[in-house]
């Protein structure tokens, strides 16, 4: 059966750690980093990278357009 796997790249410097992407993710892939970026924000990152399905929910709710989404169909 075909399976969809995905990944996101967060622009950590632009991210403001608002958490909206984290709660929008249906697969609990994202979390806020314990580290902060140069502006002091706990930026978003893939806490559980293997669960991402590339659905783009996170990128569509992100106010700062800092998420790029990739998706791949695998057999």
């Amino acid at each position, binding site marked *: 059966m075909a399976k969809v*796997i*995905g*990944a996101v*790249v967060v622009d950590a*410097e*632009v991210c*403001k*750690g*608002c*958490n*909206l992407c984290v*709660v*929008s993710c249906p697969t609990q892939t994202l979390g806020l980093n314990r580290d902060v970026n140069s502006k002091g*924000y706990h930026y978003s990152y893939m806490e559980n*990278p*293997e669960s991402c399905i*590339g*659905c*783009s*929910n*996170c*990128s*569509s*709710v*992100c*106010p*700062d*357009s*800092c*998420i*790029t*989404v*990739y*998706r*791949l169909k695998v057999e």
Partner: protein
Amino acid sequence: MSEIAERLKSIIRPENQVYKKSSVLNDVTMHYCPGCSHGVVHKLIADVIEELGIQDQTIGVSPVGCAVFAYNYIDIDWSEAAHGRAPAVATGIKRIMPEKTVFTYQGDGDLAAIGTAETMHAVNRGENIVMIFINNAIYGMTGGQMAPTTLLGQVTSTTPYGRNVDLNGYPLKITELIAQLPGAAYVTRQSVHTAGAVRKARKAIKKAFELSQKNIGTCFVEVVSTCNSGWKMTPVESNDWMVKQMFPLFPLGDLKDGGKEATEPFQMKG
């Protein structure tokens, strides 16, 4: 290399990219507070302009309000209007350059308080412009004062004990009024708090921009929004509050569609 890194490497490739920031958005970090709805709506407008291929023929009119600097973010020509006057500025632009696509971007104070006259009359003339209305029920820019759309009981810096009808009157449902005007072509109310809502809002904004090129009247898109700083909540709490408190008064959906009203020419004599 670890298994996870290997896996990511295989996915993160140009050919697998499904979402990337629009090229019509500049590479400037927006000044908005973390989680502010303004950023999402900017993104949607930029996406739509890119998709429709109208970057070179679109003029935006930014308001006085938190979105005053919209011109720093969306890579098109802009005119920055005085507080409330964006519909008049857009009218001037559209009338003098009717072949262009012209839109205003305004907050609730801008569009529904100080600029109410300009808003109503631009729509009533059926100006062939798009109006994007960010209703966050507060004056974000000036530090969280009461807006015309502030809910009854809502605490703001000028309604510290909650909005009170006797003192402050009622929340203004201006979009309902707009939908009554014969010059309105398309009037809709959207939000951007979930991925599904964002998809619908994007569709509505795209439709508004497409219709505005057909010159069939004013296209008006309200986006029920959050202002977490003004509301003094986290962005996530703000979304919940908006759904619970704002949606009952400002229900989502289309209020009008199908173009401005056709009329028979009136004969003064005979």
